[in-house]
């Protein structure tokens, strides 16, 4: 938004008003659009989470009927995954990748425009299912047949919107890959690229590799329902478990698609505020690549209880445990980067530090779940819910906040309000733990996930979790206020913004000109 006001001289080139945003092919505009969309969807999905937590506040059915409750868990997941976290990181990539590698824009600006503008339509279609006969999809975001085939009129719309979301991600990923591969500034060799660019390159690679699998899976659901095929129906020689294999072959890389860019963001932020170079740059790159590779051979750990042969269970258990090694390397590298640094604790750093601690806790519970004999107990309980919210909320979402605070001064030219930022951090960090930590206990005590009502032994922790949830949700309104306030004004940011910042994007003015790098920068 800020960029619009800074180039009075070129105004006649760019359509003004709303149309400018509709037709824009500028990576900064599109990045902004993605980020705004992600934030909006974060609140839509968050509102659904509030409904879930309100219903679970006490035992008994209070507000919603069980069918609608299931719709809420399903839609909350779909919207957060495909509407909030992924577009959030694609937005960051749009803003930052060209600036970090010294390219004038993304490689395919027009495709960039399309890949964004598909999103709102897909989102509206997905939300539209809430008002259809038979209700919104309620079979879980994993869409396991045969249950998902019991969806009412919403079913084809669900499949179509998921297709659109997939197409958008694919186009985004292709654009990012092509940009990184072909548009680096002279001297910007692969091993000089900032880690954020590296993690996005690997993420985009994962996306390209698995998205067709996902598109195929949901299409087979569609043909099973309407065209008489029986890919997943035992009656025609199919197998409902086959869908789970296909889904998780996509789904496991997908969860890394949501966390790898977060690793990249944290690897940018920690060195800046530790005023020390990132420890083990090349091992970070290799660790990221190994995590990506492992993500292809561990999918069945999401489905240990379907009754696989022993050899299969052992293989997937060992492969899953291996993930701890490269992930550990990353955490050790971050800690070593801080070691003997000269640290300051501005809001982005606080979020990054909370990420390291809380994501590691999520990693620990992940390691515990890799152990198949115990996973038979953890599977489909709140322990799992706690685990993936530690990795996705205190992992991905916290890094999105960190990234927003870190680059907001660069994007807008204005400093955010540090006091409010810190307040936002502390409230978020405390309440997110009140929200999700008790869910570990609930799961261990035996509360299954995706239930609208529970036996009275789980009442205390659910109430605690709900209170944490409401508080965490409210806290995020503060973030919106901070962002709006920063966009509208504030003390001017310097070009470098942060004392310890390094990278091409900090050589540009704040805010950067509408078209950055008119002549390619030389990389040292």
């Amino acid at each position, binding site marked *: 938004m800020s960029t619009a006001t800074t180039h009075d001289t070129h105004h006649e080139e760019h359509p003004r008003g709303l149309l400018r945003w509709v037709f824009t092919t500028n990576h900064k505009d599109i990045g902004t659009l993605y980020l705004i969309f992600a934030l909006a969807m974060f609140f839509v999905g968050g509102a659904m989470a509030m409904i879930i937590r309100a219903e679970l506040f006490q035992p008994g059915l209070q507000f919603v009927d069980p069918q609608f409750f299931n719709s809420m868990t399903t839609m909350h997941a779909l919207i957060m995954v495909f509407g909030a976290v992924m577009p959030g990181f694609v937005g960051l990539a749009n803003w930052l990748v060209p600036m970090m590698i010294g390219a004038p824009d993304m490689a395919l600006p027009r495709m960039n425009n399309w890949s964004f503008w598909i999103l709102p339509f897909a989102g509206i279609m997905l939300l539209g299912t809430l008002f259809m006969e038979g209700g919104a999809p309620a079979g879980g975001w994993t869409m396991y047949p045969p249950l998902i085939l019991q969806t009412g009129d919403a079913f084809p719309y669900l499949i179509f919107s998921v297709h659109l979301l997939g197409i958008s991600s694919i186009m985004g990923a292709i654009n990012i890959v092509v940009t990184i591969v072909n548009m680096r500034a*002279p*001297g910007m*060799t*692969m*091993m000089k690229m900032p880690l954020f660019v590296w993690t996005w390159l690997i993420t985009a*690679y994962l996306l390209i*590799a698995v998205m067709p699998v996902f598109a195929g899976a949901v299409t087979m659901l569609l043909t099973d329902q309407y065209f*008489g095929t*029986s890919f997943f*129906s*035992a*009656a*025609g*020689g199919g*197998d409902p*478990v086959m869908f789970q294999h296909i889904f998780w*072959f996509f789904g496991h890389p997908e969860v890394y698609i949501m966390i790898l860019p977060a690793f990249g963001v944290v690897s940018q932020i920690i060195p800046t505020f530790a005023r020390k170079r990132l420890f083990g740059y090349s091992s970070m790159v290799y660790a990221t*690549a*190994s995590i*990506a*590779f492992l993500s*292809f*051979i561990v999918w069945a750990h999401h489905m240990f209880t*379907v*009754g*696989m*042969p*022993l*050899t*299969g269970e052992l293989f997937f258990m060992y492969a899953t445990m291996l993930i701890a090694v490269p992930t550990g390397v990353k955490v050790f590298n971050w800690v070593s980067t801080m070691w003997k640094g000269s640290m300051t604790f501005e809001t982005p750093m606080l979020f990054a530090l909370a990420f390291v601690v809380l994501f590691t806790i999520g990693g620990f519970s992940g390691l515990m779940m890799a152990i198949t004999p115990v996973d038979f107990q953890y599977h489909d309980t709140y322990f799992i819910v706690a685990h993936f919210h530690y990795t996705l909320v205190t992992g991905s979402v916290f890094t999105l906040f960190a990234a927003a605070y870190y680059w907001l001064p660069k994007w807008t030219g204005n400093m955010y309000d540090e006091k409010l930022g810190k307040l936002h951090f502390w409230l978020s960090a405390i309440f997110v733990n009140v929200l999700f930590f008790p869910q570990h206990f609930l799961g261990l005590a035996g509360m299954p996930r995706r239930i609208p009502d529970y036996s009275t032994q789980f009442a205390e922790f659910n109430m605690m979790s709900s209170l944490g949830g409401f508080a965490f949700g409210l806290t995020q309104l503060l973030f919106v206020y901070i962002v709006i306030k920063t966009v509208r004004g504030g003390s001017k940011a310097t070009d470098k913004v942060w004392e310890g910042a390094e990278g091409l994007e900090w050589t540009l003015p704040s805010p950067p000109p509408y078209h950055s790098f008119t002549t390619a920068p030389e990389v040292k």
Partner: protein
Amino acid sequence: MTASTGSNPKLVKRLLLIVVGMFGFGFAMVPLYDVFCDITGINGKTGGRVAIAAVIEPDLDRTVMVEFIANVNQSMPWDFTPVVSRMEVHPGKMYRTSFHAKNRTDRTMVGQAIPSVTPGLAARHFKKTECFCFTEQQFLAGEGRDMPLLFMLDPELPEEIEVVTLSYTFFDKHKAIN
């Protein structure tokens, strides 16, 4: 101004090799998994018709208990029961048994029986030469009949397996298509 810099192509090549290798291994896992599903009989799929070419010497010293289970899917309005619920068999010897099914409705229905064997390891050692599950079964309104099953356990059935359970589930063919 030169577009490509010296060290880049080499590094890219190396990285690509690693990446391709990794992904190659990744996708190789799928057929690999496929293979071990076939070997180990994931989900107890017994596969289709098995023709037994050579005459196999029955292993009369060993007895294995075979249990029969019958289910109908989606509460299909059929009665479906095994005529005998368990049999002691010698591996390598052919046995005959039958299942009884009855269509309780007043309309003609077509069903398809889907077999499943547990433990999964036994699945590929469970040889059926004649089975009502090979084809769709049409039942007139109110019709009931016995359907034969001719089977043999492969003598190579792993030693530790003492009980094999064969389950059939009848699916309403009309429902499956719609």
